[in-house]
């Protein structure tokens, strides 16, 4: 067969036609793949034993190593938001007594989770995508599959569990830091007494429940979106870079979309 095959080497008449793909098809394919990764992650979370220490290691990488960055970022965000609120309030009604009360409600219900999740996504999402993406391009995920270790079970689930646990913890800590940074700015810039600022009378249990659910969902979403992008890495270091960028962009987009959905549902089920 060899000579004949060589002569017709470039003819390529018997290969199946390449399927035509549009941007919409690609996007639907990505969403379907994200859905598959999510379902597999939930399946393995409840049906398989974890490798010893896998979740703890990820908790350290996702939690402890993000703590300083998140504390500093949320401290500045809290200070800036309260300063701007104070300036606008002073123009309308020069009464600052309710700034702390309205700010803490806003913080608990939405800002701590939704704003905090964004820097968290850049820090954690990029790390997860780069790590898994590097494993894909160096064939480590293939080696896992050859040993009957599904990469979703072995790589994604520990990161998912750690991100839910530590992501939630860090967002709560970040919220607290933003609150106290706001208190400092309120006192220094607008002369509001900390006792007046620390007014929780407007906060309801619904605000706390909705804020906590958002923290849990964002923690899991960052891990799932970033892992899916990492697993879809194609090519060498350029592919890892692309996957990392897409993980951060995808996570931010998912956070904003989920915030809209959860806030809308929350307004009906847990009114402000």
């Amino acid at each position, binding site marked *: 067969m*060899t000579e004949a095959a*060589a002569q017709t*080497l470039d003819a*390529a008449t018997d*290969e199946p036609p*390449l399927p035509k793909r549009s941007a919409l098809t690609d996007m639907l394919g990505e969403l379907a793949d994200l859905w598959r990764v999510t379902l597999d992650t939930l399946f393995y979370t409840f049906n398989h034993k974890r490798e010893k220490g896998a979740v703890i290691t990820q908790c350290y990488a996702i939690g402890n190593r993000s703590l300083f960055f998140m504390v500093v970022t949320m401290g500045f965000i809290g200070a800036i938001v309260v300063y701007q609120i104070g300036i606008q309030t002073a123009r309308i009604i020069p009464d600052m007594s309710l700034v702390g009360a309205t700010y803490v409600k806003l913080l608990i219900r939405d800002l701590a989770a939704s704003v905090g999740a964004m820097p968290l996504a850049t820090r954690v999402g990029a790390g997860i995508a780069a790590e898994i993406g590097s494993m894909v391009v160096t*064939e480590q995920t293939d*080696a896992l599959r*050859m040993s*009957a270790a599904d990469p979703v079970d072995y790589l994604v689930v520990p990161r998912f569990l750690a991100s839910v646990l530590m992501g939630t913890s860090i967002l709560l800590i970040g919220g607290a830091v933003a609150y106290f940074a706001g208190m400092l700015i309120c006192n220094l810039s607008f002369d509001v007494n900390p006792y007046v600022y620390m007014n929780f009378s407007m906060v309801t249990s619904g605000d706390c429940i909705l804020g906590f659910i958002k923290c849990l969902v964002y923690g899991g979403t960052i891990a799932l979106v970033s892992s899916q992008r990492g697993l879809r890495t194609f090519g060498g270091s350029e592919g890892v870079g692309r996957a990392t960028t897409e993980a951060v962009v995808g996570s931010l987009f998912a956070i904003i979309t989920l915030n809209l959905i959860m806030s809308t549902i929350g307004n009906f089920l847990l009114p402000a």
Partner: protein
Amino acid sequence: MIELFDVHKHFKEPVLRGVSLSVPAKGIYALIGPGAAGKSILFKIIAGLVTPERGSVRVNGEEVVGRREREMMDLRRGIGMLFQNYALFDLSVAENIAFPLRRLFDFSEDEIEARVAERLERVALPGFQDRNPASCSGGQKKRIGVARATIARAPIVLYDEPTAGLDPVTSQKIYNLIREEQRAQESTVMVISSDVNGVLSIADRVGMLHKGRLIFDGTVDEARVCPTPEVNQFVHGLTEGPL
């Protein structure tokens, strides 16, 4: 025995174009060809890591194509694989080598430890158990990869570029090791290599892929006198020719 029939695969461009191949059992089959010919993808298709668009792949009589990931476990128990990029995990050398045993079989810790030590002796890396692969040289990483690929004593072993980037002496040692392992286990071995002289020194049969097509399949002696210009040029390392 490994059999492929009319296997097609494309990514952005066609990678495999109707490859049909039969690899006899208990021998070494060398798969050669220039870069981007589709050799590594062919291995991944045989191992069920990549699904072809068209065609059939049978390993020991069992169809690989169309199986779901969770149904691949039995098949992969019977296949060992050395990856081109080593694919060693960020674990100790011993943990890397023991990984397939822990996941695919139900051996006691003592047995796993003994097997790892025996493999490390075999690949001339005794006492490397606690080292991290990152601190090993390229040749040592390849040998760790060989130890991992062969620890389960699988009847089929696939070696993807086992000597890429290695010096000639280390390369020949790796080839000798592959031959000795194949004889000891009586396994069916496929080796991808761009080092034609080295791989032909241990192969029983040879196939050449070019632009996604199998343009030669025969014995080593037949390969050396094959009149097909691409095969002749590649086997003899000529600079003049169609490649």
